């Protein structure tokens, strides 16, 4: 289970933006851009949580904090009771991260890419081989395992990336817009991957702009707007608060209301 509570993150403004008084964005103040002001949500075992929000809402910053790439200014992130803000190394062992823009090492083969990350996560010997073989079979990677990543198709790359992200059997999987720019076949791989994780009882935090994917996969949603979580709850509750049976309309209504439903 992952519990996120009161996350805050601000970035120093670039010099050229410091003296801009005309900015209408209330998040620009005191020489800082307050990217995330107050984000809280939780995601239990076997649950898929959709992280929604307009562009620039603070979703990517939130996910970067979840993945320990960025350190929050305040707040806590607990995975199975461990505060990973205080112990990021433990957090990295517990999280599997995948985004639409994640790259692979082009001059390494698909197998070498996955094995490299397995080694960095401390797997070795027989344990490493059996885990990798299990993933290669499950993701049907046999045909391209020994091809260099630079020569793989987008679908093959995405499968390799999935294997890389979960090779260490993470407790939580974080996905940042994983289907952006992908064709239907590759998108389907991702959807199946998320379903497999759900079947394995792994909590999945899934950021996306595609509400059809949310309807298809998610049990609950967290809507972030202007750095703050406006809504957290089940899909049904989301539609109820958003006063619409359609996710798109409910989304627009909650953003326009501007009030908190956490």
């Amino acid at each position, binding site marked *: 289970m992952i519990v996120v509570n009161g996350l805050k993150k601000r970035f120093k403004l670039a010099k050229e933006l410091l003296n801009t008084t005309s900015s209408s964005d209330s998040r620009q103040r005191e020489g800082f851009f307050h990217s995330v002001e107050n984000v809280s949500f939780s995601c239990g075992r076997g649950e898929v949580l959709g992280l929604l929000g307009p562009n620039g809402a603070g979703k990517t910053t939130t996910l970067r904090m979840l993945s320990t*790439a960025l350190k929050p200014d305040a707040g806590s992130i607990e995975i199975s009771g461990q505060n990973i803000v205080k112990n990021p190394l433990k957090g990295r*062992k517990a999280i599997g991260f995948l*985004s639409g823009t994640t790259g692979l090492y082009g001059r390494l083969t698909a197998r070498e890419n996955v094995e490299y990350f397995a*080694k960095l996560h401390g797997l070795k010997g027989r344990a490493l081989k059996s885990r990798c073989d299990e993933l290669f079979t499950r993701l049907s990677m046999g045909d391209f395992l020994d091809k260099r990543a630079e020569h793989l198709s987008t679908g093959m790359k995405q499968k390799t990336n999935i294997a890389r992200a979960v090779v260490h059997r993470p407790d939580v999987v974080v996905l940042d817009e994983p289907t952006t720019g992908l064709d239907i076949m590759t998108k389907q791989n991702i959807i199946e991957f998320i379903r497999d994780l759900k079947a394995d009882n792994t909590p999945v935090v899934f950021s996306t702009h595609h509400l059809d994917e949310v309807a298809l996969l998610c049990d609950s949603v967290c809507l972030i707007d202007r750095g703050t979580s406006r809504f957290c709850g089940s899909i049904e509750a989301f539609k109820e608060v958003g006063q619409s049976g359609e996710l798109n309309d409910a989304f627009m209504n909650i953003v326009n209301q501007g009030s908190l439903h956490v």
Partner: protein
Amino acid sequence: MFEVFLKEVKELLRDRKTLFFVIALPIVIFPILFALLGFLASKTTFEAEQKVHIYYLANASLSPDFEQMLFYHKSFRPYKGNEKFETIEALKSAVKAGKIDVGIEIPATYDSQVAGKHQQISWHVVFNDAQSINFVYKRLEKLINKFSAQIRSTRLEALGAPQKEHPAILKPITITKVDTADKRENYGEKLGALIPYMLIPLVLMGASYPAIDLGAGEKERGTLETLLLTPVTRTQLVLGKFLTILASSISCALVTVSSMAIWVAIAGGIGVLDTIIDAFSSVTFTDFLLIFALLLPVAVMLSSLVLAISIYARTFKEAQNYMGPLSMLVFVPIVVSVMPNMSLNTTTAWIPITNVSLAIKEIIKGTVDHSAVGLIFVASALLAGALLMFCIRWFSKESVLFR
């Protein structure tokens, strides 16, 4: 850290561009380039030496002896045309028009001047000096000096000085040079300054290409973020990358030096470059080890610096833009080391790169002060350590990693 290092080396060895710059360029291209330059230079010199110059001697009838000397010289041939160039202006025009290579004007008053015995005579030599290799003036000067010596001898005899006393009159004191510097020291002074010019930029070149790939390249490909999410500390990541860059940097220098040594040996085998081989024959294996030991902290310094730059850059191109000024920055201290009166002492031993450059020269000369080398090693190692620490700190900064 070891896993990071092994993976980076594997990737590096599969990168044709880096392999080209670090291995192929030093092994094949540099010797070919030097050989080509040497061939072209010797060809140009040979052609210049073989060239026969067409001359015109104005007022030739005034000095038939000199006319004869010039006529029978193997490198000169008289102008065969019908035109006359009896003034300096006419000679200039003829040279410019390419009708002659050189014109010599004997003054119309030559007869009276030579007879006057106490007068200095002025001749004019007209030629085009805007050529890098041009033997015409030297040859003519030699010939005129020889002719002038004949006149001097006649005048001295006329003054009552017998032929055998002429050298004592003309040059009462002669100097015999007794040089305490041996051949190694002499050649070392000249060649020793060139070695750092070659080695230190090579160390930088060997570090730059992989550094760009390992820092900015990872950012651009989107692999850095995934790497940062593994349970490997930032220090281990930096050290893994740093060791790869260092290995490449040292390999580049070693491969080049070995390649050059082999090519010099081959050239020596066919009798070329005897002087260089002779000069370096007294440089011992310990000296080479000492040079290598001094290059190590320089390689550490430059590897840390290029890695820090590459991590800061957002893209491959941005990193390449930063590397350009860095190469200039490295050349400045090397140039300082070859400035007049620059020598290795307790002050210069603290100037980064200049100190190593000076020490390498002294090692080649065989005059190195080993305590100064120790000081250089301490100074360079301290700076290298500080830069490496900076690199690790830099790699931990969110504002640098997520610019």
